[in-house]
């Protein structure tokens, strides 16, 4: 336990608290810096790119979370069924999760990119579109590629969690209900889904937090473009911190993100636990 706490303290807790001091300083990393109080925080509220990046992050959270959670559930239900091929679905859903981000983004860039990528050439050959679709040059399309890539990459993790949840449900419930003449649909609606409530609450929270931290996919697929329209907050933090070497400003933005995640998690917890308590009683 001690070695763990030591590492955890050194690499997680210490930077976490030290970042607060960092966010109160101005000047460039590696040079003499000075205490500027809350100036970094004041500045970011006047920075339109900060708002844009925050908006982009929220957009991604709201769109990607339901998709990735619901698909995870669907894949889990299929993999947990007695159908032939269930195992194939389970493996197929999980396999991309073990790939590194540079691999998955390369795969999807090569799928979507005009002229060279294969998707456009199929679409043109099938007559769906007349000319090259410029996936990365229009914000909604660029977002679509990012969300598709993210879903493909991470849905397996939720699938596994849902499968674990499904296996917790006692078989007797299904047996008893089928004796009573329940259909598959009724079993799903009245046994499976209510029993998954606990695990779903957890999965949604984990997914929201993961989606807030989006960085690699837009950074590697669109570079945050076209323009800055797909640049999420973490990418902006990275650029300010490690390209402009403005560590104070980057730290201040990081704490804003942390604050928002804490608030969202807190509100979410409040809402879901009240809901659960009401039904349980």
């Amino acid at each position, binding site marked *: 336990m001690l070695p763990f706490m030591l590492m955890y303290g050194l*690499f997680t807790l*210490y*930077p976490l608290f*030290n970042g607060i*001091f*960092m966010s109160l*300083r101005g000047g*460039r*990393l*590696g*040079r*003499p*810096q000075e*205490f500027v109080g809350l100036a970094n925080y004041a500045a970011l509220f006047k920075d339109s790119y900060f708002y844009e990046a925050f908006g982009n992050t929220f957009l991604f959270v709201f769109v990607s979370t339901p998709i990735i959670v619901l698909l995870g559930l669907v894949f889990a239900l299929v993999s947990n069924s007695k159908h032939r091929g269930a195992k194939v679905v389970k493996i197929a859903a999980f396999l991309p999760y073990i790939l590194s981000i540079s691999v998955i983004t390369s795969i999807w*860039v090569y799928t979507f*990119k*005009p*002229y*060279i990528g294969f998707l456009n050439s199929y679409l043109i050959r099938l007559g769906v579109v007349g000319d*090259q679709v*410029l*996936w*990365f*040059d229009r914000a909604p399309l660029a977002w679509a590629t990012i969300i598709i890539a993210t879903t493909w990459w991470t849905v397996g993790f939720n699938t596994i969690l849902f499968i674990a949840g499904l296996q917790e449900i006692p078989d007797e419930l299904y047996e008893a209900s089928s004796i009573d003449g329940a259909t598959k649909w009724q079993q799903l609606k009245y046994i499976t889904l209510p029993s998954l409530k606990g695990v779903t609450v957890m999965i949604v929270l984990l997914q929201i937090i993961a989606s807030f931290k989006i960085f690699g996919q837009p*950074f*590697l*697929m*669109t*570079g945050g*473009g*076209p*323009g*800055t329209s797909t640049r999420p907050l973490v990418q902006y933090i990275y*650029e300010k911190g*490690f*390209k*402009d*070497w403005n*560590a104070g400003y980057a730290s201040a933005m990081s704490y804003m993100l942390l604050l928002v995640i804490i608030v969202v998690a807190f509100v979410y917890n409040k809402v879901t636990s009240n809901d659960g308590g009401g039904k349980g009683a």
Partner: protein
Amino acid sequence: MAKRNLAVSGIVLLLMVSILSVGCGKTQTDNGSGNGGTGGAATGELVFWAPFGGGDYEFMKQIVDAYNATAPDFTVELVSREWGTYYQGLNSALIASSGPDFFIAHQSKLAELIPTEKLQDVRQIESDVDWSTYMEAQVDAVTFEGVQYAVPLDTHAMVLFYNKDILERAGVSEQDLSGVNGIEGWNAILDKISKVVSADEHVLDIANSGANTVQQFWAWYVLNAQAGGSYIEGDEAVLNGEAGVQAMDIMNGWAAEGYLKKGIDDASSYDIFKSGKAALNFTGVWATGNYETNPDLNFGVMPIPAIAGEQKTWGDSHTFAIPTYIDGNRKEAALAFVDWANENAVTWAKAGHVPVKKTVLASEEYLAMPYRSDYMEVLNQVEYYPVTDMLGAANDLAMIKINESFLGKYAAKEALDKAKEEIDNLLR
């Protein structure tokens, strides 16, 4: 305050260095042993960082191997590091005095590295280097306020690659291209080519989409320089002048006419030309080796013609820099390798780069290499980046606005005005 500062930066750097130096664990141990020996045993290994992948890496490796085969007192170990985060890691390592014994840095990045105060004045190192064998312009480019912080290795510039087969179909000769003098003549050539290319072929191929649109920025930079404009002067961005707007309008015009298609990403721009699907291609000389690997591609290369005014182009140099924190004899050994590498830079020229030693440039071996000598003149046409430690960040801002104008979000003037405002904020 200072102490806390140091502690904070220390821990951050420790974290970054420990993360970034995975895979080159030798670095620290070698430095350790090297620093330990106080001038007694003058042998060992020098760790050499370079952001090279692919062809560049292979050719530099050949140079290093050939050098090590001469049994020098200090052998060299080439450590290839990922390009995307190279300067992040390098900057941190320099600040922490825990980096390599010497390293590659782009000329354009020196201004960002000098403030670490860890770059050695190479003229202060004891050596028998004959500096008069180096091209003056390239040495000047690494000399800041009288201090030479690096040794140039090459110049790599944006040039014009052309597909001879497509040009022949269009009835455009190489002389027509190189003789271009002004936008009308150039656009007339593009128009001629556009009449003979099929729907899946490109008249002009310049990367302008996806995660990295730097080639589009360079193309703008070339046209701006040709039209007599500059980019940043002192601590003020001047890219929105008449020349800059003209450059942007020229490029937007190519898109409007369909000469330059939208949606070409960085990797595709090479693939398209390499597969024979583009008549003309603006890119760096480093593509030469890549294009040669397709034996069916009948191509040529020349400096970018005088499209918008005087013949100028974008260019940068790879340079060798030596940190201040290593032992004196290691510095001497590093400089000895650097000069040797430059003397044997014909190998490096295979990657497409133009060497910096006059002796190499005049050698029969170099002049006999296909393509390379065709763009030797760019050495005198390169308009180096302005010297500012915020260059990288400024380029990012300009790149975004130029791309947004290209995609139709802003008119040329509006985009460049916005870029100026943002860069000025950065430089203040």
